[in-house]
Each structure stands twice: as C-alpha cells, then as structure tokens.
C-alpha cells in the first residue's frame, strides 16, 4: 500500500452543441438585450496602443464546408506583450474576444491589435501570436490553436519549432492580404488540417 494521491480529476468535456450562442453570444442568437453587458464583444477599446488589424477566415470541416455554427474565443497580450491584469498592461487591450462564424457565409472576423511577443517559461521568446479556442456542435472538446503572422520573425518560436512536419507550420500562420488585413482559415480535418494543441 502507498499513500493515496488526493488530487481531483478535471471534469470531462461535452460538446458546446448547436445552441452555444444562446449562452455565450445572446445577441448573435437573436436574444439581444439579455444582459446589460455582453463579454468579449471586442478585445480592444478605443485608444488601444499598437497596430489595429483584422483577421478573417473560415472554420472548414473535412468535406471542405465552412461551419456556420462555430464559436471562437481569442486571448492575447497587448502590443507590448503584456496580458491584461499584468503590471503596465495597456488598459484599452482586454485581450479576450468572442466571435462566431457568420450564419450565412461562414466567415469570421477578429478585429484587434497585433500582439507583442511573450517569453515562454525559461526565457525563450515566442513569436507574436493569438491563442484560439474553437467550439461547435460536433467538437467534443474545445480545440486549441494559435494564430501567428507571416510578416513576423517566426524562426525561433518554440511551439512552431516542435512541429516535425514542416509543411504543417503554415497552418498556424496568418497570410497578409492587405494593410492590416490577414487571412487565417482553420481546417478541422483533411488536406491542410490545422495543427491543434494540447498545451
């Protein structure tokens, strides 16, 4: 016999289902005015420091169809690499956003500031990135991934450098399609499947 480890175990995940918007984005679900303030409607307020950018894309299933019911949350630091709540963080950069695929087109748009670089534990610098969490009907556990930027130096990023199949690295890198405009598609399955994270 040995001593018993008395740790708890994480609660198992269940799919967010088709009606996740009722709970997390009531206005999107057609129930606007439900709460005095909905959370996550924008990751930045007026006056946020840094370059304002717009990232557009689709969440695409294994058949090539863009999901109309995906809900995404993003989390990022401010333009100087500080997360909300840390000393010196930009008070206009909350960093958290909720956005949904458009019910008609499947397109999503995230308008934010370009994040600054943040060190990993041990001091290695990570390239600027935005963390994503994707939920929808048919997704049993929320999927984690990251958006990196093709116009940043990603050569020494510890996460990107762990991807053995170098041809998959591009699935995490947003393409610049105009001034302040990026394209980032999330492929759940099939050719060009996005690298999803266990982190």
């Amino acid at each position, binding site marked *: 016999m040995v001593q018993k480890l*008395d*740790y*708890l*175990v*994480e*609660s*198992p*995940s*269940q*799919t*967010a*289902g*088709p*009606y996740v918007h*009722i*709970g*997390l984005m009531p206005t999107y*679900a*057609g*129930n606007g005015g*439900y*709460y*005095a*303030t909905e*959370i996550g409607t924008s990751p930045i307020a007026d006056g946020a420091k840094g370059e304002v950018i717009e990232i557009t894309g689709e969440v695409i299933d*294994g058949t090539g*169809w863009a999901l109309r019911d995906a809900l995404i949350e993003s*989390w990022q630091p401010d333009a100087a690499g500080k*997360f*909300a*709540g*840390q000393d010196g963080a930009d008070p206009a950069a*909350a960093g*958290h956003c909720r956005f949904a695929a458009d*019910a008609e087109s499947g397109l999503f748009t995230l308008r934010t500031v370009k994040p600054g670089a*943040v060190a990993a*534990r*041990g*001091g290695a610098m*990570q390239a600027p*990135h935005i*963390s994503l*969490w994707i939920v929808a*009907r*048919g*997704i*049993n556990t*929320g999927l*984690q991934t990251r958006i990196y930027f093709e116009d940043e130096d990603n050569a020494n990023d*510890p*996460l990107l450098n*762990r991807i053995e199949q170098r041809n998959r690295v591009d699935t995490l890198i947003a393409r610049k399609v105009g001034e302040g405009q990026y394209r980032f598609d999330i492929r*759940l*399955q099939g050719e060009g*499947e996005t*690298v*999803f*994270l*266990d*982190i």
Partner: protein
Amino acid sequence: MSDNRDLGPLVPRNRAIHPPAYDIDYKTSVPRSPRWSLLSMESTPSEETGPRFGHSLIGDLDNNLILNFTRGKAPAVGERILMHGRVLEEMGRPVPHTLVEIWQANAGGRYRHKKDTYLAPLDPNFGGCGRTITDENGYYEFLTIRPGAYPWPNRANDWRPMHIHISVFGHSFGQRLITQMYFEGDPLIDRCPIAATIKDRSQLDRLVAPLDMAHSRPLDFLAYKFDIVLRGRRQTMFENKLEGM
C-alpha cells in the same frame, strides 16, 4: 489564495477522461474531428493567463433563469430547481471569482434560438441563459427550471436527456471548459450518443447531478448539486528557478 502568476505550468490534460474527437455515433463529429495528433507542449503565459471578469458585470437577475428573461415580471413555466456547486481545480483548491455561464432548453425541450424548430412551443417567459461569478470559496448557484428532453437529428430516433450546458473560464485560458450537467435518474442518459462520447462510464457519472434535498427549499424548489473541476497548476519551490539552475 496566492497570485496565479506565481504558479507553475498547467497540469497536462488527461485526454483519457475526455471524449475522443471522432465518434461515429455522434455523426456531426465525423467531419469535424481532427485526424492528426494534437501537438503537446508545456504551457506558456499564453495559456496560464486568462481574462478576468468582475462581479460588477453581473446583474441581479443574471443567475435567475426563472425571472431574468422578463426582468422579473413573470416566472418561467417548469419545475423550479436550484443548480449549485463549486468550481475547483485539480489540486483541490477552489476557483474563486470566475465566470460561470449556462444555457438550456425550456421545460418543453425547446431552445430560444433561431435554428431550433422543435414542435414544443417557446415559453414567452423563458430565455434560457444565465451567468454568475463564483464567490471566494468557488461557490456558484443558479435558479432555473428543469429543461425538457428533446429529439435531435442524428440516428433515426435520438433524444437528448435533460441537460444544462455549462461554460467555465477558471483563471487561465488553458483551463477553458464547456461541459453539460445531466440529472440523476434520467433514463435517456444511457441512450444518448453525446453522453456516450465519454468512453469511461465512471467519468460520465461525474456529469450527473444528484438530487440534493438538503439544499431544496420547501414549497419552492428542488436542488441539484454539480461540482466542476478545472485543470490544476503545478506549484513547487523549484518551479520558478531560472533554466539550468
């Protein structure tokens, strides 16, 4: 409670307790499940930090689904219940001051959502969503009605057991979790392909809330207790030393 930023990395997820991405009996998961393995890495500040929400965000009726849709004017139809419990993390610590959001069908099994076309009528007094922030001990509570079971297009005759969807933040973006609460004694749990995406029955049982007569209020509501556990964070005196030391 020590400052979160002094803690070490998140405890890696035990994927064995979670549903696999692909489950042929839950048809929508078939085209929406990644085929390649997840890329594992120790957490970084990007996962260890997360949004915080203040108690001032929450309106008086936000956690009262019986009254919040009509702003207190008229109660929703259905069996009145208190859903309550604690948010904890794997090391056994409570998770205080974290946002908990729920959404659910009405007593007839109908959601207030433009995509739901089930025969059961909408309840004009029921919206179906609520939110609250845990107290300093990780406690939360909602007053609501017991949602109805409903059919859904999957296999030829699938029904969802009575359930309430729950979304929890914790203090780290890497703790983000959505799950569902089921009700003790519901015979549809054993027939539901979504519940069955969890392969270990003892883990599914952890999502079934027991009837809690001790917290029910005579002549008013029954209670169901539902604790939620989020990923923990490692903390040792060696954790914050510089690399190589």
